[in-house]
C-alpha cells in the first residue's frame, strides 16, 4: 500500500483546524514589522483537512509495533508495560495546563510531586540528594559528570582529566565523558564480563575523575566487585558514577549508596515505565551523595515552612534545561512508584526471573557467553554460522520485536534480551519457541526475512549516500 507523505495528500487551501475569529482589530504585520522581516514565500507545509490528517497518522501508527502490540524484549531499554493510569495522570488539566514560569505559590501540587519523587529516588538509591531535571539518561550522565568536574574545580584540583569507562559501556558513557571535556579511557573485563578490578587498580591515579559503571552491566551481569571498585576510586580521590539504565534489576535488592556509588542516573522511562514514545521523551533523574549535592543543577525542590520551593543548589553547575525537565515523565514515574511502594522489589524479582528463565531455555542452543545468573536481561549469541541480524529479522516474522543486537560490543553477534517483568510465561515460551526454531532455520530463508512485515529489509547505504531527509 502506498504510504504517501502528508504533504502529498493535501491541496492548496485545505484546512485541518479552525481558529477563533479576530475579536480585536487585526493588525497588518506588514505595517507592524519591517518589510524585510516578513516571509516572502509561505512554507510548503501540508494543507489537509482533519479527516485526512487523522487517517494518515492512524495508518502510520499501524505500520509500527509497540509494547501494546508485540513482545518487545529490547535489551537495555526495559520495554515494560506502560500503565494507562500514568497517561491519565499526565492528562490531568491541573498539571497539563501549568506554565513553568508560574510562581511557586501557584504550583504547589506540582512541586509536591517533584519533592516526593526526589524522596522516592533517594530511598531507592540510598543517596540523599536528587535532581529531576535531566531529560534522558544521557543527560543524567552528563549532569553527573559535570557535577564531578565542578567538584574538582571547586576543590582546586585541576589535574582530573580522565573518566574511565568499561569496554561494555553504553555509547552514551564515553560520549558523555567527552562532552564534559574529559578524556574517556577504557578498562577491560574479567571472565564474568565485569570490570577487571586489577586492571582498574593499575589505571586509577590522581588524573582520574571518575569511573562510569553500569550495574548490572550491559551483559546483564551484576558487577559483584562494585564495593571494591568504589574503594579503589575513593582511595584515589575519584568518584564512582553508576549508569542506572538497568535499575530494573536492582529495586529493593541493591542500593547504590551501599555499594559506594557517589552519583547515578535513573532512566525514569525505563525503570518507572513512562512510555518510550517511539524514542522519547525520557527522563534521567540523578541521585548523589552529600558531597556532590551542592553541585546539582538548578533548581531542586525543597520543603520549607511555607511550602515547597525551587532552590538553586549552592554550587550548582547551572541549568541543564530551560525549565524543570520533563515534568510529564516525572509525574508518571511518581504515580508508578506510588502504585508499587515497597512492591517495587517484586518488579525486580520478576524481571530477573523472566530473564533467567529465557537464559535457561535458550542455553544449549544459543551460546550464553556469561552463563551464570543473569539479572534483568540475558546476553546470548546465535548458534555458530548464524547472524544476530538474521535471527532478529526472523523474529519479526514470528511476531516478536527483536532484542537489541550487536550491543554490547565486546561480544560478537550479541543479542541482548530483556523480557521485563510484565510478560507472562506463555509469551516467553512462545518467544523461546521462535528462537529455537530460528536456530534451525535454513540460512537462505533467514536472510530473506522479514517477509511478513510492512517492509522487507532496507537499503541503509542508499539512505546515507543519497541523503534525503525532507520532502
Amino acid at each position, binding site marked *: 500500500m502506498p504510504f504517501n507523505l502528508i504533504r502529498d495528500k493535501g491541496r492548496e487551501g485545505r484546512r485541518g483546524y479552525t481558529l477563533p475569529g479576530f475579536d480585536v482589530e487585526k493588525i497588518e504585520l506588514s505595517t*507592524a514589522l519591517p518589510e524585510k522581516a516578513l516571509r516572502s514565500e509561505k512554507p510548503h507545509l501540508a494543507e489537509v483537512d482533519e479527516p485526512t490528517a487523522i487517517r494518515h497518522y492512524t495508518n502510520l501508527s499501524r505500520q509500527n509495533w509497540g509494547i501494546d502490540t508485540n513482545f518487545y524484549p529490547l535489551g537495555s531499554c526495559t520495554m515494560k508495560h506502560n500503565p494507562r493510569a500514568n497517561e491519565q495522570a499526565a492528562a490531568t488539566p491541573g498539571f497539563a495546563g501549568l506554565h513553568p514560569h508560574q510562581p511557586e505559590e501557584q504550583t504547589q501540587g506540582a512541586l509536591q510531586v517533584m519533592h516526593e519523587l526526589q524522596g522516592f529516588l533517594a530511598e531507592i538509591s540510598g543517596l540523599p540528594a536528587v535532581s529531576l531535571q535531566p531529560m534522558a539518561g544521557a543527560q543524567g550522565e552528563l549532569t553527573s559528570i559535570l557535577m564531578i568536574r565542578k567538584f574538582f574545580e571547586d576543590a582546586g584540583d585541576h589535574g582530573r582529566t580522565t573518566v574511565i569507562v568499561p569496554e561494555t559501556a553504553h555509547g552514551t558513557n564515553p560520549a558523555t565523558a567527552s562532552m564534559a571535556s574529559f578524556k574517556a579511557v577504557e578498562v577491560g573485563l574479567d571472565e564474568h564480563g565485569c570490570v577487571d578490578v586489577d586492571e582498574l587498580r593499575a589505571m586509577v591515579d590522581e588524573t582520574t575523575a571518575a569511573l562510569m559503571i553500569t550495574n548490572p552491566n550491559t551483559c546483564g551481569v551484576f558487577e559483584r566487585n562494585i564495593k571494591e571498585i568504589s574503594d579503589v576510586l575513593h582511595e584515589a580521590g575519584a568518584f564512582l558514577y553508576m549508569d542506572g539504565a538497568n535499575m530494573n534489576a536492582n529495586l529493593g535488592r541493591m542500593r547504590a549508596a551501599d555499594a559506594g556509588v557517589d552519583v547515578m542516573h535513573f532512566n525514569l522511562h525505563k525503570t518507572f515505565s513512562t512510555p518510550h514514545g517511539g524514542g522519547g521523551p525520557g527522563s534521567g533523574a540523578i541521585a548523589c551523595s552529600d558531597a556532590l549535592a551542592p553541585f546539582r543543577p538548578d533548581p531542586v525542590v525543597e520543603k520549607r515552612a511555607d511550602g515547597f520551593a525551587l532552590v538553586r543548589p549552592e554550587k550548582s553547575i547551572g541549568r541543564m534545561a530551560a525549565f524543570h525537565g520533563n515534568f510529564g515523565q516525572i509525574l508518571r514515574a511518581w504515580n508508578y512508584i*506510588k502504585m508499587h511502594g515497597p512492591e517495587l522489589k517484586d518488579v525486580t524479582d520478576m524481571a530477573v526471573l523472566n530473564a533467567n528463565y529465557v537464559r535457561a531455555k535458550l542455553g544449549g542452543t544459543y551460546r550464553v557467553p556469561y552463563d551464570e545468573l543473569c539479572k534483568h536481561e540475558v546476553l546470548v549469541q546465535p548458534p555458530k554460522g548464524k547472524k544476530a541480524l538474521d535471527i532478529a529479522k526472523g523474529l519479526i516474522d514470528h511476531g516478536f520485536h527483536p532484542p537489541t543486537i550487536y550491543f554490547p560490543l565486546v561480544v560478537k553477534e550479541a543479542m541482548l534480551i530483556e523480557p521485563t517483568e510484565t510478560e507472562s510465561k506463555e509469551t516467553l515460551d512462545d518467544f523461546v519457541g521462535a528462537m529455537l526454531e530460528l536456530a534451525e532455520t535454513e540460512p537462505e530463508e533467514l536472510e530473506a526475512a522479514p517477509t511478513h512485515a510492512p517492509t522487507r529489509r*532496507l537499503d541503509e547505504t542508499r539512505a546515507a549516500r543519497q541523503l534525503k531527509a525532507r520532502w
Partner: protein
Amino acid sequence: MARFTPHTEADLEEMLGAIGVESLDDLFADVSPKHEGELKLPPPLSEHEALADVNELAKRNAAGLPVFVGAGAYDRIIPSAISAIIGRGEFLTSYTPYQPEVSQGHLQVVFEFQSVISELTGLEVSNASVYDGSNAVAEAALMTARLTKRDPKVAVSKGLNPRYREVVETYGVEVVELPFDGGTTDFSEVPEDVSGVFVQSPNFYGIVEDVEAASKAAHGVEALCVAVCDPISLAVLESPGALGADVAVGETQPMGIPLTYGGPYAGYMATKKEFVRQLPGRIAGETIDEEGRLAYVLTLRGREQDIRRAKANSNICTNQALTALSATVYAALLGPEGMSEVAELSASKAHYLADRLQASGIWLRYPDAPFLWEFAVEFDDVEQVNAALLESGIVGGLDLGDGAMLVAVTEKRTKKELDAFVEVVANAL
C-alpha cells in the same frame, strides 16, 4: 505481587524449576552488597487511589486560568486530534526505530517532522529533535565549534532567552555579550574568535531582530550564525535560512504541546546540508526496501554515540519523539495558513493589549521596537501587580526583576481577558 506482573504461584514454581534455583532470593546470590529489608516507600496504592491523589494535588496548582506569561513556553490552542494520535499505543509504547521494518510509522513521522522544520527554517536538513529549546541552543553552540574548529565561544545578547544562555554555559561554552539597545542587538562588533553568533528572533523581549545583520556579522569573522526562532513566528517571518543563518534552533512547544510545567517539549535543529555531519541526534532518511518500495530508516548513524562513542557529535540517545509527533500533527492540521493565522491573532491581540496599557498610562520598555506577541511593560512593583492579577484569576507576566514584566499574548486569550488584564493592572497602580 506487583501491579503489572502476570505470574501466579504456579508460574513461579515452574519457572524457578526451569532455571534450577529454589527461590527468588537465589536469583540474587551474586548481588553484593545486598539490600535487606523493605524499601521505605509509602504502601502501594490501587490505580483509583493513586489517581485520586493526582486529582487532589492538581487542585493545588493554579491551572486553567488565563496565562499572560510566556518567556519560552506559550499557552496556545491545541487541537484535540493531537492527543488522539499520540495516544495510539503503537506510537506511545514503541522505542527508537532500530528495527525499521516494524517502525515505518514512526520513521515516516520523523521524516515529516524534519520536513516541517526544514520548510519553516528555510534550511536543508534537520534532526529528529533534541530535549528542548535550551538544549538545541547549547548543541548548536557546540556544533559551531566543531564546524569552525574553534573553541566553543559564542556571541549572544540579552535578547537571547536567559534560560537558554544558562544552559549554553552549563555545557561549557564561553559566552561573550553583544550590546543590546532599544530592544535589539547590535551586531556591528563581534569578536573575531567566536565560533558562533546567536540571534534570537523574536528575541526574549518579543522583538523581531535583524537576522541578516547577525549572519553577516558572523560570516565576517568566519563564524557561524545561529538563529533561535519560535516556529510559529516562522509562519510569517522570513526564514533564517533565507537571511543567511547557518543553523536554526528552537522550541516546538508552541506547536500543539501542552505546557505541563515545563516539559516534555521538543527542541529542533536545522542546518545546511554541508553541515549535516556535525548535526547531533537522530536523522531519518528515505530509502527503499528489497522490493524497491519507498521506506525510511535512521541514517548517518556515524554521528551518534552508539556508533562513534567518545567521538560522537553528542551523547544524546533518547530524544523527544512523541512530542515531536505532536508538533508534526499540529503542522498538518494548521497548515501554513493556520499557523500564520495563529501568529496574526496573537500579534493582533498583543498589540491591542499593549495599546490599551499605554492608553492607561503604562509604559512599554521598548516602545519603538517591532514586537510580535510578547512585550515588556514597566511597573514599580511587578510582584504586587501580579498578585492583583492572580486575585482576579489571571496569571500575570514574567517578573523580569528590574521593574518590568514580560507579557505574552497568544491566540487563546480573548478580548474579555485582555480587557480584564488592563482593568486590574490600571487599578493596581
